[in-house]
């Protein structure tokens, strides 16, 4: 196979070895951790800022507007300007609010989304931690975010916030089941939860093609459920601005509000990259069976390009949902999950298991 020309394993390993050669082990560890921390911090900030800008541009495109176009060429520095403005805003505390919980909430949402990034494989050998339970770890960590949302709504001492937080709690925990079960469908096919192995297994074809109809159903369910889990699109009842002002973060001002906003977009990035990794082959190039020439050309496109391309495609789909569908009511939302998605999902896993056992998959 030709795609090891873009293997990052030797690159990261040589940095690691060089550091341990030059420095005593303790300092080498410190320097290495600092480098990794800084790289992820900068990447996190850039992706977050870019997604906010992308959302505004896509929204403008859908509504036949121009969108941000004043700060920098095509307005690309708009979100940076917004960030600086929000950083310079006073932090307002509400009378009778629970100050400790009020301050802890943004920490929880950001830490939850930041820890989830650790397990995502960006390219071969380019991931922070390669867990053998990677998929389960990401599901577990991203669901911690709901604690932050609930705390934010509860501690604000505002009725809109409380209603928003309660809705968001019911919604996120309900749709988490569907996220988990639709990923389980693919785990049945792959037989592993380690992200690097899941991607390697897709070198002969992405799981959405390998798994027949059940994989396609799982993909659609995952898209719906993850849109709901990130409080977006037609499922944004938690911050329904026409009825609840801003939902659970009504009382948050300045940089704290910015963190909730950033966490929402980073969660979107995380679920999109899981969808890209598990269903669409992650950084694996697109291959067609025995077309040697075609496959060979595809191998030359860098894996980072494939990875970000697929992720961007799914993020764009989620933005499209948001600006197309009207918002659901809470009873419709819960009906959709418990009476449709969950039973379909359970049957879907059994069908997939049967197909795999019979050896009918590709």
């Amino acid at each position, binding site marked *: 196979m030709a795609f090891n020309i873009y293997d990052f394993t030797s690159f990261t390993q040589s940095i690691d070895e060089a550091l341990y050669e030059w420095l005593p082990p303790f300092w080498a560890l410190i320097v290495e951790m600092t480098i990794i921390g800084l790289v992820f911090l900068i990447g996190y900030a850039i992706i977050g800022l870019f997604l906010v800008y992308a959302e505004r541009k896509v929204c403008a495109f859908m509504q036949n507007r121009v969108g941000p176009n004043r700060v920098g060429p095509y307005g690309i520095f708009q979100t940076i300007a917004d960030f600086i403005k929000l950083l310079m805003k006073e*932090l307002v505390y509400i*009378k009778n609010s629970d100050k400790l919980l009020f301050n802890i909430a943004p*920490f929880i949402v950001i830490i939850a989304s930041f820890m989830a990034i650790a397990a995502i494989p960006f390219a071969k050998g380019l991931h922070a931690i390669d867990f053998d339970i990677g998929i389960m770890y990401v599901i577990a960590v991203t669901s911690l975010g709901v604690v932050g949302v609930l705390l934010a709504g509860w501690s604000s001492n505002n009725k809109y916030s409380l209603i928003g937080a309660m809705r968001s709690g019911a919604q996120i925990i309900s749709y988490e089941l569907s996220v988990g079960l639709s990923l389980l469908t693919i785990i049945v096919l792959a*037989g592993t939860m380690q992200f690097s192995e899941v991607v390697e297994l897709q070198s002969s074809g992405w799981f959405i093609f390998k798994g027949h109809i059940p994989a396609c159903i799982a993909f659609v369910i995952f898209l719906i459920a993850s849109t709901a889990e990130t409080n977006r699109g037609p499922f944004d009842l938690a911050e329904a601005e026409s009825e609840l002002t801003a939902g659970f973060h009504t009382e948050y001002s300045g940089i704290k509000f910015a963190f909730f906003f950033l966490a929402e977009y980073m969660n979107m990035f995380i679920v999109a990259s899981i969808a890209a990794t598990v269903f669409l082959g992650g950084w694996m190039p697109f291959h067609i069976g025995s077309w040697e020439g075609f496959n060979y050309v595809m191998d030359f496109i860098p894996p980072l390009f494939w990875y970000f391309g697929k992720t961007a495609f799914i993020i764009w789909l989620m933005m499209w949902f948001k600006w197309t569908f009207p918002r659901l009511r809470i*009873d419709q939302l819960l009906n959709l999950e418990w009476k449709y998605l969950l039973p379909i999902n359970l049957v879907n896993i059994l069908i997939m298991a049967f197909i795999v056992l019979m050896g009918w998959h590709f």
Partner: protein
Amino acid sequence: MSAESLILFFIVGAFLVGIALLFSSIVPPTSTNPQKAEAYECGIPTEGLTWLQFNVGYYLFAIIFLIFDVETVFIFPWAVVMKEAGIAGFIEIVIFFFVLGLGLLYAWKKGALKWE
């Protein structure tokens, strides 16, 4: 990197929020006035307590979720070893799913999934 280095991600995430909050609580100019500290409920003064009894429907769904989430945790190990477990494992998981489905059906018929 090993799993212990997750602590690094925890620290960096906390650092990101902490440093920004610290900056934001020191640098920007502040002003106080009694109206500013009022809860924003679209201009009308807030009425009564906020922390009061809440619609029980949300808690019902939370309880059903708890049951199903624990069941999902049981399915994960099976999914990984599915190919080794073979037909015997498949039949066992079908029975497990059947019981799970009965539970969902029970909750459905009992009206726990109905929003009021």
